């Protein structure tokens, strides 16, 4: 190297540059979305003074979901040209992602809430009570599914507004039914002949081990639906953990539900074993045409990509002495309690509960509308596939919100239930007792820490 620019000078320059880079990387990041600007930023008509307020709304990362949310954002932009709705895309654990955004000082304005963590958010004071807004605007909640509305009430506060719901049906592969010359199952929710015994019978005819084909596959998170068929629950009450809240799964009826699920693979051999399910879930098996029937919510946008076979939906069978039942899965939107744009966020919440955004959402196969009239409309009922969307709508009167509260109590029970799922333990009653104890310990610990 020349004397003017010696090795020593070069190393000095490199060290200073590196130090500067490290310091620059410590600078707070500007607020940004995870999606490319072309997808996330909605072009709206410019307001009269050219100023737009940016409203950040969280969305999941499913491609169809992003498209629909963006479309709804554009629709809102027509109504409010002074607002630019930006999507903050989160992937993986949505609760964790949003809490991390909040903890990192980069919170969105409108949070994406599922029932399994909404009350945790509410208990931490992260959600705005919109009751004053409802009263001020005299917002009528009667057009919406009562269960979906009530799900947002936490300690007398309306902590969020519903957007979409989902009930459970059983999607079935029509080609496998045709090949086995088995008649398609009913689409009538009240048909009592379509029960668990009938399911086992039909699934048996559709199971062919030589082709690695199973008649029925149910992932473990579907268990609550079976449990609810017997009017059983996991917790004595949901939402707020009181001094009386305790686990109630340790009983013969719930044991019967769990035993049925275990027997599907071990006794009746119509479902893949726990070992096979560990690597290839029921969802993937159905997509690849290796499972004839698969219970799932009306999140059908992925199924609509299937080209190899036609499919439809049938109700979830009920046990003989049970009744049709479905867990109600919800997606709500809540306003972050420290957002500076609560008024605009409330306008957004009201807008997405109007008919056009509700209709756009269900037409994409994403879910069932929170607005009851949309679910009875021809747009929804004839939105094939599936041919029988009415199955999802017919479950509405009986669908119930599942047990959820301020903590993820199931993580403590799932450790014990894992032995049941793997077949290591067959004493369902003993497993449920241990799982129940695990849940109760978690509740006790929460109460101790929050007294």
């Amino acid at each position, binding site marked *: 190297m020349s004397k003017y620019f010696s090795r020593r000078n070069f190393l000095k320059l490199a060290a200073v540059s590196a130090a500067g880079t490290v310091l620059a990387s*410590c600078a707070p990041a500007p607020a940004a979305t995870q999606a490319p600007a072309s997808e996330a930023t909605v072009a709206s008509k410019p307001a009269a003074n050219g100023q737009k307020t940016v409203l950040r709304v969280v969305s999941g990362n499913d491609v169809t979901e992003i498209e629909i949310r963006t479309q709804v954002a554009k629709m809102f932009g027509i109504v409010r040209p002074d607002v630019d709705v930006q999507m903050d895309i989160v992937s993986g654990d949505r609760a964790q992602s949003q809490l991390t955004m909040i903890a990192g000082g980069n919170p969105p304005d409108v949070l994406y809430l599922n029932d399994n963590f909404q009350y945790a958010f509410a208990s931490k004071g992260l959600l705005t009570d919109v009751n004053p807004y409802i009263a001020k605007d005299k917002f009528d909640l009667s057009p919406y599914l009562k269960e979906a509305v009530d799900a947002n009430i936490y300690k007398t506060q309306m902590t969020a507004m519903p957007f979409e719901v989902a009930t459970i049906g059983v999607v079935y592969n029509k080609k496998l039914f045709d090949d086995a010359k088995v008649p398609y199952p009913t689409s009538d929710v009240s048909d009592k002949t379509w029960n668990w015994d009938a399911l086992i019978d039909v699934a048996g005819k559709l199971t062919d081990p030589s082709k690695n084909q199973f008649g029925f596959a149910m992932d473990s998170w579907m268990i609550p639906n079976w449990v609810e068929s017997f009017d059983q629950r996991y917790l004595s009450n949901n939402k707020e953990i009181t001094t009386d809240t305790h686990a109630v799964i340790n009983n013969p009826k719930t044991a019967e539900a769990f035993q049925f699920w275990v027997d599907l693979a071990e006794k009746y051999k119509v479902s893949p074993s726990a070992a096979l399910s560990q690597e290839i879930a029921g969802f993937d098996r159905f997509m690849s045409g290796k499972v004839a029937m698969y219970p799932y919510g009306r999140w059908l946008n992925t199924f609509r990509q299937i080209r190899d076979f036609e499919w439809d939906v049938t109700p979830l069978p009920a046990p003989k002495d049970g009744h049709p039942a479905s867990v109600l899965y919800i997606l709500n939107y809540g306003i972050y309690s420290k957002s500076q744009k609560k008024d605009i966020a409330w306008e957004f919440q009201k807008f997405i509960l109007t008919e056009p955004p509700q209709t756009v959402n269900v037409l994409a196969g994403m879910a069932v509308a929170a607005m009851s009239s949309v679910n009875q409309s021809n747009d929804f009922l004839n939105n094939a596939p599936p041919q029988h969307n009415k199955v999802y709508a017919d479950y509405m009167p009986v669908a119930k919100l599942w047990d959820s509260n301020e903590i993820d109590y199931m993580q403590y029970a799932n450790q014990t239930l894992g032995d049941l799922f793997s077949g290591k333990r067959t004493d369902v009653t003993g497993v449920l007792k241990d799982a129940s104890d695990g849940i109760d310990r978690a509740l006790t610990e929460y109460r101790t820490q929050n007294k």
Partner: protein
Amino acid sequence: MDQSSISTADLASKDAADNQLLIASRKKRKFKENLEGYLYAAPWLIGFFVFTLTPFFSSIWYSLNRWDMVTDIKFIGFQNYTDMFKNDVFWKSNSVTIRYVLMALPAGLVLAMLLALLVNKQNKIMMFFRSIFFLPSVASGVAVYVLWRWIFNPEFGLINYLLSIFGIKGPNWLLSSDWALPAMVIMSFWGVGGTMLIYLAGLQSVPQHLYEAAEIDGANLMQRFWSITLPMMSSTIFFTMVIGIIGGLQSFTSSFVMTGGGPDYATYFYGLNLYLEAFHNFRMGYASALAWVLFVVVLIITLVQFKLAGRWVYYEAGE
């Protein structure tokens, strides 16, 4: 000026001034050299201060508080620590982690030693096998654990398939609370190549004249191994043992990816418990307390090892 005309005092003062100038010049040069050194080390120093030292001491404070990162921090003294010692899951995670280390570490070190002895020959075939044995330890990360999950699958996994050839019905491995931890131990041998390489270097540093002298004295292979190889390798073994215990007590990724800590807490490592408390349950204060307990335990174990090392570790340099 003619030096002969300069007085001794003048010369002395001139020397003193020159000395002072020299000393000042040396100090300046030394300062400049030191500054340059610190400048080169600055990126690392800044990073260490910001990303290691500051969180290190901050976590002491957090461990004395209840904090979920989204609500206000609340001072609770040592309650996190008392809650921890009353928590069944804490003791279960301790038990699982300690059992894992007790199973995986000795077996891993023995296997590494055997492999090192095997490949400690200077020929092309052994050079090839050194690479083969070392290669798996280069591959790391989540993809490897996903691969091992498939290998351990009871229905179509490679291990049970090989066992079935011999008429043996393999266990449920990761789906069994009896076999999940042994499966983790078996999987840990995947990275034994790194330790093998360290032992190989140690073996090649053992003076050959010791072996020759022992042969002359009539020592057989095993005697030479126990009396020469092991003692001469003791410092290397000590090093791998210390590092192995520290690493083993911090195990996390394998159970996080492969089992989620189950079934029935069978693979619920201490590190996994810490992670879930911090980032799943958002109990940062409690997780910080867990971290400090782990640190103290690892520190005590390491200090005890160093204390006992004097009895069995031989350093050729006579340390």
